């Protein structure tokens, strides 16, 4: 089933940070005798890492028109192309969660990775195409998964920060439908999937709720599909207070 691809992608990418756990057993808390730590670890600028991790909720608005979709009927199906404009669905809205891991190259520039997974219901039937007919599965039958690199700039304005960033990556959208070949075939669970590039500029505003925690609101649009929009709220924990600088 094609839905398995984005799910597997999301599971693998979400699991990666957890597998990187470092095992070290400390034997002393005295400077010079410590095995794992060093003097000023965790409380000095010099010995903290300018990293941040965040997770949150996001909403996505996707229009099938302009995308290349590929239908698949079961495992042995060779698949068939579906033009987005022929699907009979004007737009799909979905909601999900995202996760990001960011490193700050300076007090104003950051790089990172971002993963997002959203679910929704298309709520309508895909129009017949390529000799296939479809019916709505009456479930959460839409899933969108994203994996992308992030490059951004940050302007610290006291307790608020403004950020402008670009996500570059892969965007997978998949619609699960019941489909059959012709008018008399047997209904079979299948999917229509679009795999494309993501190039999404985003504008974000952070509110520092503490020296190491932020709540952010963001919005962006896919440059390659300008009608696709996304927005969300992210909660992040930062390794260095105020990412090194509270104000300009």
């Amino acid at each position, binding site marked *: 089933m094609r839905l398995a691809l984005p799910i597997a992608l999301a599971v693998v990418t979400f699991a990666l940070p957890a597998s990187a756990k470092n095992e070290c057993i400390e034997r002393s*808390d*005295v*400077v*010079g*005798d410590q095995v794992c730590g*060093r*003097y*000023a670890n*965790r*409380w*000095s*600028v*010099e*010995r*903290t890492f300018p990293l941040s991790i965040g997770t949150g*909720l996001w909403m996505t608005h996707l229009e099938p028109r302009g995308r290349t979709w590929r239908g698949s009927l079961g495992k042995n199906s060779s698949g068939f192309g579906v033009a987005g404009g022929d699907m009979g669905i004007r737009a799909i809205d979905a909601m999900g969660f995202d996760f990001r891991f960011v490193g700050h190259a300076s007090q104003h520039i950051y790089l990172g990775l971002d993963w997002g997974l959203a679910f929704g219901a298309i709520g309508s039937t895909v129009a017949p195409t390529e000799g296939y007919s479809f019916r709505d599965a009456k479930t959460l039958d839409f899933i969108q998964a994203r994996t992308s690199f992030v490059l951004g700039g940050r302007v610290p304005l006291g307790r608020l920060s403004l950020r402008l960033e670009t996500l570059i990556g892969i965007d997978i959208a998949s619609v699960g439908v019941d489909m059959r070949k012709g008018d008399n075939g047997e209904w079979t669970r299948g999917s229509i999937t679009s795999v494309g590039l993501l190039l999404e500029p985003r504008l974000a505003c952070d509110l520092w*709720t*503490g*020296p*190491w*925690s*932020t*709540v952010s609101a963001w919005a962006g649009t896919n440059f390659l599909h300008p009608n696709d929009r996304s927005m969300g*709220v992210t*909660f992040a*924990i930062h390794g*260095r*207070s*105020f990412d090194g600088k*509270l104000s300009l």
Partner: protein
Amino acid sequence: MRWLAFAFVILPACGPAAYSVGGVARTGDVDARAVRTLGCLDVGVAVKPAFHDDDAALLVLRVGNRCLRPAAFDVRAASIVGVTVDGRTSPLELVDPRAELIPVHVDAGAQGIEKIRLRAREPGELRRLCIDLGHVAPEVGVVDARVCFTNVAGWQVSS
């Protein structure tokens, strides 16, 4: 509404809290009388029995930054002098076998605790020990920040 409350109140509160005024003394690691305020920094010290046979004592150092910007701190600038039971004065040095004690900037709102071995340049049991913290905060300049301890059934803060 419950989800919104969770999202905007509970989750942000999960982050670590910033250091607040008086936090160094409240931890219990150091006596409130052994805390000095040096600009943004609260620096507290305590003296414990030696950790290794050839050490004179163990210095417990707790530092907290009350400001929303990093503050410079150099523990090596602390001047430590001991007085032996027979009245001789003996300078003490910080034991730093891995050259870790570099000048640092205490992160905004951060606090930390360190335990550092002290070694006397001359042998002899110490009766009194004074730590001058006047130079450890370079941004503040030199201030009067001496803390003394007397070893009578354990190290106690003395005048």
